[in-house]
């Protein structure tokens, strides 16, 4: 049984690729067989975040065009034996992805025993974003607690509810989850930033994770090591909680309150 999960947002730069990479690693760390696919044709980046950019020989479009086999194009992760990356093509041809082609790749992955397929969607609502979500069983909607991101993600929710295979079949549609990133409990407390419950209330979604604003995200992408693997980081633990919740476990939200300051931090800052 394969579950296809699209990581999407509408708006760019909110953390889709960071999230895709971390969720994929988190699932693989639990022994699941996972493929993570970059749907951002022309703007390949998942390979960099995963740290396998120098090992890309064939890409998603090569597989669809029959230039190579799926096995040849799947890049095996160096950290987890059960994790594979399928890179986006750098072609400028916008029609390189076809619905039939995408379906065939997903079906082949499923036949190959993959348990999870993470589809890293491009920003926007064009073809790449449409195809990334079309065959999904579930969607992780990545949102920053900021007006344009929230509005765009609501637009994406509309598309998930109408322009997906599951919606067209009428069998319950795509299961949607909210994942907040760049969350700053401190700014929420001072009333500068919308809270988890504010965003939840506006969008009407279940929260699968809240990832705090963290400097570790940049160092993770600098190094090509998904942030979930930096276990001392709050962001890592928040992503790991999200993976657990995706697997159906109950986890209380962490990193959503301002930590109480001790005497020394209050005196000397920190």
């Amino acid at each position, binding site marked *: 049984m394969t579950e296809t999960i699209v990581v999407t947002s509408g708006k760019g730069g909110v953390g889709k690729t960071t999230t895709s990479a971390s969720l994929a690693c988190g699932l693989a760390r639990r022994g699941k067989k996972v493929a993570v696919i970059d749907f951002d044709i022309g703007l390949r980046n998942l390979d960099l975040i995963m740290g396998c950019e120098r090992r890309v020989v064939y890409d998603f479009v090569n597989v669809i065009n029959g230039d190579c086999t799926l096995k040849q194009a799947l890049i095996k992760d160096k950290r987890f034996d059960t994790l594979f990356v399928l890179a986006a093509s750098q072609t400028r041809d916008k029609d390189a992805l076809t619905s039939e082609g995408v379906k065939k790749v997903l079906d082949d992955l499923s036949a190959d025993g993959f348990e999870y397929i993470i589809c890293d969607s491009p920003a926007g609502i064009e073809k790449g974003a449409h195809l990334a979500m079309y065959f999904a069983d579930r969607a992780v909607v990545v949102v920053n607690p900021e007006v344009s991101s929230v509005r765009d993600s609501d637009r994406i929710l*509309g598309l998930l509810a109408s322009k997906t295979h599951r919606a067209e079949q*009428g069998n319950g549609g795509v299961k949607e989850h909210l994942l907040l990133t760049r969350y700053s409990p401190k700014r929420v407390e001072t009333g*500068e930033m*919308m*809270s988890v419950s*504010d965003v939840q209330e*506006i969008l009407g979604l279940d929260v699968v994770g809240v990832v705090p604003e963290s400097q570790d995200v940049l160092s993770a992408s600098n190094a090509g090591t998904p942030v979930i693997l930096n276990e001392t980081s709050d962001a890592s633990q928040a992503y790991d909680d999200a993976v657990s919740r995706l697997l159906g476990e109950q986890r209380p939200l962490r990193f959503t309150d301002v930590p109480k300051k001790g005497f020394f931090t209050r005196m000397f800052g920190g």
Partner: protein
Amino acid sequence: MGLLALFRRSPPTAHVAKERLRIIVAQERRARGGGPDYLPLLRRELLEVIRKYVNVDPDAIQVNVEREEGQEVLELSVALPERSAVAPS
């Protein structure tokens, strides 16, 4: 940027964001929740056809898609004027 700026806080604006979003999201949901993308165009074209025969008010035409037990029903209702005025032809 003076020394005072160090002590100045950004004003609390989260509630403004929430309120604005609540309104715009509800409005956009209504706009698309009314049914498929083609509904506004369908409504306009139907109005043109009907107006060839009867002089109806633009607001007198309601086009809705409703879901009933798994099937979608396209519902069209036209309120005719009291003395069916004949269109100018």
